[in-house]
């Protein structure tokens, strides 16, 4: 039986449908990330669960009890905000103690619990510091300890890492996951950072324009996106707009080139489809001079090389035949990429079995333009 349920949640602000029928069921101790671009409704959903806002329709059920109309102060939900949510007039310990004080716990009880929690988040020696004396990362640790202090039924995190440096972000997200697993606490995590969501969640729900596009485990989301939006939002994806030409052998046509794809078998001939290939699935090799392009191969020229550490990302221009600006992105080991400098003629092989196919039929929904830089 699910522990936290969001049933048919609707929330409209004027004519804007911030939430348009959200269904989520989360088991006890599970970690779900709500992932999506700015304005997709993920924060609205979280605030409904916290009780800061009321839905226009739908219910929120925790452990079998409907809490939709319960005041936020009676919900026992621990929330970690984006930033600057610590009470500035209290020390780190004072902040963590706050919820316990409100709950009239005994003094020794409070002291012990505060120390334990600060220890848990790695701030045992910063108890007497005021928020302005703590770095952004330390402040978020205190905020986490404060939310956990009240032994919440559900832990809610609203982009808790978005204001932090990249390095601190990775370090802290791993700790959040460690603590969550250690305490076995049911967690709802809002983020616009897909890498973050994939790294720490049991389940990910990708949202867009007030609805959940797809929900699943991180690997399902990555390997089997069910809509073009999800495919593009999660990870980097090469998109080739094609037409199915032979549905028995599995053949599609992309700008005059025929590609054999397992995924195309059983489709309708003539159907417009999107062929999706992850950058690491593309096989790139130097084109032998004058040699003909082989099966499933696209010819092009290396446009840029971006060094990403062990992996190097290459942008390949497919040339005039594929339409202006058409290109592919391929990831390969840095050692191999050295053989393909900028300007080198290359061929890219689309793998027969690794490519995904999505129908391009319009499902009639409007979606915002992606802007991953703007949370």
């Amino acid at each position, binding site marked *: 039986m699910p522990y936290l349920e969001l049933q048919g949640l609707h929330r409209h*602000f004027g004519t804007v449908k911030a939430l348009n029928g959200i269904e989520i069921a989360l088991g006890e101790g599970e970690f779900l990330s709500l992932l999506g671009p*700015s304005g997709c409704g993920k924060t609205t959903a979280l605030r409904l669960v916290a009780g800061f806002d009321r839905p226009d329709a739908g219910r929120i059920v925790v452990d079998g009890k409907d809490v939709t109309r319960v005041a936020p102060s009676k919900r026992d939900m621990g929330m970690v905000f984006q930033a600057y949510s610590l009470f500035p007039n209290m020390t780190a310990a004072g902040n963590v103690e706050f919820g316990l004080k409100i709950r009239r716990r005994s003094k020794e009880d409070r002291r012990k619990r505060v120390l334990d929690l600060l220890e848990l988040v790695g701030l045992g020696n910063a108890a007497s510091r005021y928020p302005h004396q703590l770095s952004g990362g330390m402040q978020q640790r205190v905020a986490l300890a404060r939310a956990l202090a009240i032994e919440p039924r559900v832990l809610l995190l609203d982009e808790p890492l978005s204001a932090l440096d990249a390095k601190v972000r990775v370090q802290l997200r791993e700790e959040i996951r460690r603590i969550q697993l250690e305490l076995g606490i049911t967690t709802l995590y809002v983020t616009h950072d897909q890498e973050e969501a994939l790294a720490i969640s049991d389940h990910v729900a990708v949202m867009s324009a007030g609805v959940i596009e797809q929900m699943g485990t991180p690997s399902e989301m990555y390997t089997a996106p069910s809509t073009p939006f999800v495919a593009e939002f999660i990870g980097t994806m090469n998109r080739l707009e094609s037409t199915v030409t032979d549905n028995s052998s599995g053949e599609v046509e992309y700008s005059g080139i025929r590609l054999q794809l397992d995924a195309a078998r059983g489709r309708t001939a003539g159907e417009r489809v999107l062929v999706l290939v992850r950058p690491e699935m593309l096989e790139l090799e130097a084109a032998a001079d004058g040699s003909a392009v082989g099966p499933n191969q696209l010819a092009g020229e290396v446009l840029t090389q971006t060094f990403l550490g062990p992996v190097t990302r290459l942008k390949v221009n497919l040339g005039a035949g594929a339409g202006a600006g058409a290109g592919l992105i391929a990831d390969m080991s840095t050692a191999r990429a050295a053989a393909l400098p900028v300007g080198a003629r290359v061929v890219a092989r689309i793998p027969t079995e690794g490519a995904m196919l999505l129908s391009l039929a319009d499902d009639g929904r409007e979606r915002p333009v992606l802007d991953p830089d703007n949370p």
Partner: protein
Amino acid sequence: MKLRRPKITLSATIWLLLGAAYFLLPLVGTFIFSLKSNQTGKCCTIASYTWVVHNGDFWHTLKLSLTLALETIAISLVLFVPTVYWVHLKVPKLRPVIASFALIPFVVPPIVLVVGLLDVFRGTPQWFYGTPQGFLVAAYVILAFPYMFFSLDAGFRAIDVHTLTEASQSLGASWPRTLTRVILPNIRAAALAGSFLALAIVLGEFTIANLSQFNTFPIFLQYTNETQAYPAAAVTLMSFGLTWIAMLSLLYIGRKRGGTPQLTGAR
């Protein structure tokens, strides 16, 4: 992320309504009062306004107060602009000293200042001690000092004094020329703000004028209050109007450069 703002609450509405009533009633009351007849006490006549417009003392004292205000503003600018400029440019460690000077008038109220001034300058030449243009202006520059200083200080902080000065001098400009042609245009908003505050102070100042017995506009207003109840309402409204014009001009400048309004002290 985009959250609808909640509706205004009942308690907020009550606070704001009571506040608005307390603050607007005296304005409305004075206006209605000014329309009453001197003979019958009934509404409505513009006799009070006619009385004011035809009163020689009204024009005389208003002119005097405006002259004093202009004189105060001129002396304040000549005195404080070069000082604040120089402090920002060459001796920044003097800035906190001057800033603490600027706080002293808050601890030395006008009533204390005027007692001291009367004592110190008794027996000085008549052109100074005996005329409002001398004695009062000297005191008003001190009253305006904190407001002038903080306005100018903010103005200078917002511009790059060093670069502007060096650029001007590398092009061959002299010190006076640099100050009037390069620096002044850049702190014009700050200087204007300070000037409007000084204007509001001088037009409303009663304490020092009363104790040193000069007949300025506020003195005329007080005299009218004591002798002519209904016309006094008309003069009061005009005085209101002058304060409003000065302060709204100030707020307008402040809005354009993003500052906050400051406070004078015509209590």
